[in-house]
């Protein structure tokens, strides 16, 4: 894990925030204060499940005013590879976990004159932090939050209390649609858009931004990809002389960590590029699932990202 320092935390509070969402409050185990973070940051939570360590990245919702705790929100996903299920079923108040130092891949662009925050479902967690930071700085902002129904109550209530009518809610059960073509036209020069939510929503919002004539540099998105599952294959590290099997339900990064190897990585979700490595040989087809490599880099077959991509075939040899 190249995230560097890990922090031991104790689960101080667990709250059922919505039908499938729990919010966890983590306090530093040593009782001290947790590091400051800028809105949009995430931490990786390390969960010990017997012999196995599950590592999932979660956006930070907020830090207690006295610095004593952080909150994260965890959606229980139906096809959980273990992480969200573990957090929902196995973690209780008083348990110890480890988290990495906060890392920010989704920062606010503070010189912006206005900020549009767009969230879908659990994508609200970084948006929540961003809205608080913009409010503290006295910036101009709007929040557009799409939810399935009222079951996302806890986030809605808190944000409404803090942000009043700057929060616009779209409930799918009431057939309210978050339509970017209605939000974007006429926004003043210097406005920035930030979106976090399901993949399809992010794509639609970014495309809507370009369609509205916006330059791509003003459209910001947080896209954490869960490592897609696939078929097992063999992985060989040429320099380290290590060979291991990547199971169908794990990523290359996870397989290497299980084998005791510690390759550089950061976000574990295909966004930051830290774990991109050179491919030496591929007996099979590279399946790229990241949001980092360019189309040309993918086409070259020379690079792959350990955290979310895989091989469909027999063996992959990497320059590690």
């Amino acid at each position, binding site marked *: 894990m190249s995230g560097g320092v890990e922090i031991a935390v104790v689960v101080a509070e667990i709250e059922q925030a919505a039908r499938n969402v729990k919010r966890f409050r983590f306090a530093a185990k040593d009782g001290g204060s947790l590091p400051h973070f800028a809105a949009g940051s995430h931490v990786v939570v390390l969960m010990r499940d017997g012999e196995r360590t599950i590592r999932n990245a979660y956006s930070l919702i907020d830090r207690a005013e006295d610095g004593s705790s952080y909150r994260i929100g965890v959606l229980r996903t139906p096809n959980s590879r273990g992480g969200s299920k573990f957090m929902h079923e196995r973690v209780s108040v008083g348990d110890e976990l480890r988290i990495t130092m906060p890392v920010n891949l989704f920062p606010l662009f503070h010189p912006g004159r206005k900020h549009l925050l767009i969230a879908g479902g659990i994508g609200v967690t970084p948006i929540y932090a961003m809205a608080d930071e913009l409010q503290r700085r006295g910036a101009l902002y709007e929040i557009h939050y799409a939810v399935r129904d009222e079951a996302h109550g806890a986030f809605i209530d808190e944000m409404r209390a803090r942000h009043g009518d700057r929060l616009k809610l779209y409930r799918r059960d009431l057939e309210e649609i978050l339509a970017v073509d209605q939000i974007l036209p006429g926004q003043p*020069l210097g406005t920035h858009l930030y979106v976090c939510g399901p993949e399809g929503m992010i794509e639609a919002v970014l495309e809507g931004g*370009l369609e509205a*004539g916006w*330059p791509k*540099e*003003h459209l910001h998105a947080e896209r954490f990809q869960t490592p897609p599952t696939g078929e097992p294959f063999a992985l060989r590290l040429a320099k380290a002389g290590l060979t291991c099997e990547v199971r169908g339900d794990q990523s290359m990064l996870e397989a290497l960590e299980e084998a005791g190897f510690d390759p550089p990585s950061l976000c574990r979700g295909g966004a930051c590029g830290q774990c991109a490595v050179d491919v030496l040989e591929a007996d099979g087809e590279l399946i790229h699932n990241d949001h980092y490599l360019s189309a040309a880099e993918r086409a070259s077959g020379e690079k792959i990202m350990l955290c979310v991509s895989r091989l469909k075939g027999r063996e992959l040899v990497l320059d590690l």
Partner: protein
Amino acid sequence: MNTDVMDSRPTYGGLRLDPRAKSHLVVVDGDGAPAVLDAFAGAEDELNRTTILCAHEDVAAGGLERLCALRAARLQLSGSSEDLLTEFERVLDGADMSVRIYVAGRESFIGKVVASAALRGVVPDSVVAERRGGVSRRVQCVHCKHIDEGVTASPYRCSGCGQHLLVRDHFSRRLAAFQGVRIDAEIPGEVPPAMELAS
């Protein structure tokens, strides 16, 4: 001192029309006119939603006529470079996010245009820029903070404090200026001959 290319030195990709923008705002100084002609000539649909801002005194003979001949929806002539920047800022203050900003001309001019857009929350990389014209730099003396325009050689003599300054590639986006540092700080009086700036 190492004066190799450094990260702060802006790069300019060249004027390329972004057809997804709802309107185009083009700012040109004298040397930039040919770049605008190259990028916009024949693009009738785009010209119908294009505003071109330039300065009288600036545009080389013939360049202005050709800019006029493009028949952009609006062509605004300012009396001087300074008035041009003021007019640009006035247009920016009424603009929305669907406009694309283009600038063509000398590096010092591009720097001023980008800096004034950035002050309004625009990401510098979203400004489409093409550098044209000779090598001349706007340089700030890091000692007395005086800014000299049109510096073409290094070292040069600061017209603020009289020191001999090495022109570095270190570029300040806020000031739209390169940095000049005293070249004979260690051995006063030892000033190497001036060389024309190459880029």
